């Protein structure tokens, strides 16, 4: 019986905190994808697309992919604990990157709408 207490799987967080956080990242990535698709659709509605529109869509996709990469990296660091049963917490760089992608999306959206 004493052996199971030494086993890292036995000290697993009963609140499933890392799993919940990983799923929160997944949900957020999906929300980001929906916003990117809607912005893309906005460009497609323009009757005669020029080079500007192509550049806007390219930047849009780039912002979406950057967010996806940030989320993926974070989900991977969550899966590799710093020590037994202690997952790594998010650094400010990841938070800033995710927010920057959102702001770029707003900027591109405003450029498309106006």
């Amino acid at each position, binding site marked *: 019986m004493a052996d199971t207490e030494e086993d890292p799987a036995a000290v697993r967080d009963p609140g499933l905190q890392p799993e919940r956080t990983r799923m929160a990242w997944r949900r957020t990535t999906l929300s980001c994808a929906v916003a990117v698709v809607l912005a893309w659709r906005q460009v497609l509605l323009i009757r005669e697309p020029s080079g500007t529109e192509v550049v806007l869509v390219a930047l849009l996709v780039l912002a979406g992919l950057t967010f996806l990469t940030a989320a993926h990296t974070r989900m991977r660091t969550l899966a590799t604990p710093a020590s037994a049963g202690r997952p790594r917490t998010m650094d400010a760089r990841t938070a*800033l990157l995710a927010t920057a992608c959102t702001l770029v999306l707003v900027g591109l*959206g405003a450029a498309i*709408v106006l």
Partner: protein
Amino acid sequence: MIFPDRMRALAADLRLWFAPARIRNEGSTPDYRFSLANERTFLAWLRTAFALIGGGFAVDQFLPSLHQTVRTVFTVALLAGGALCAVRSVSHWVRCERAMRRGEDLPASRFPSLLGAGVGLLAVAIAVVVLLGWTR
């Protein structure tokens, strides 16, 4: 004087944003579960931002009969709300993280109620405009 204090707090926040490692100098590392909960709150605010941004595009795309100016005003209002939400999400995350490290109370905020009131007003305004059929 509240104003200089607020400016100083804002400057401290901005320094923290661009030198993220500094947060480790403050206080002691909290229980990782609290940090993860703070991260999920940050993500929930980010999703709110994406929802507002998507809503802005939706107003512009799915209400084509609306007067051009009215439509653009609603769209820009929703996009700006999304940007505000995104900036606020990271600022709130930093402040909560620092409060937990110092063992202080979590920051109180009137932002959720303001956002709720704003979204409510916008929804009523869009409903009224659509019902009145204020078309071009």
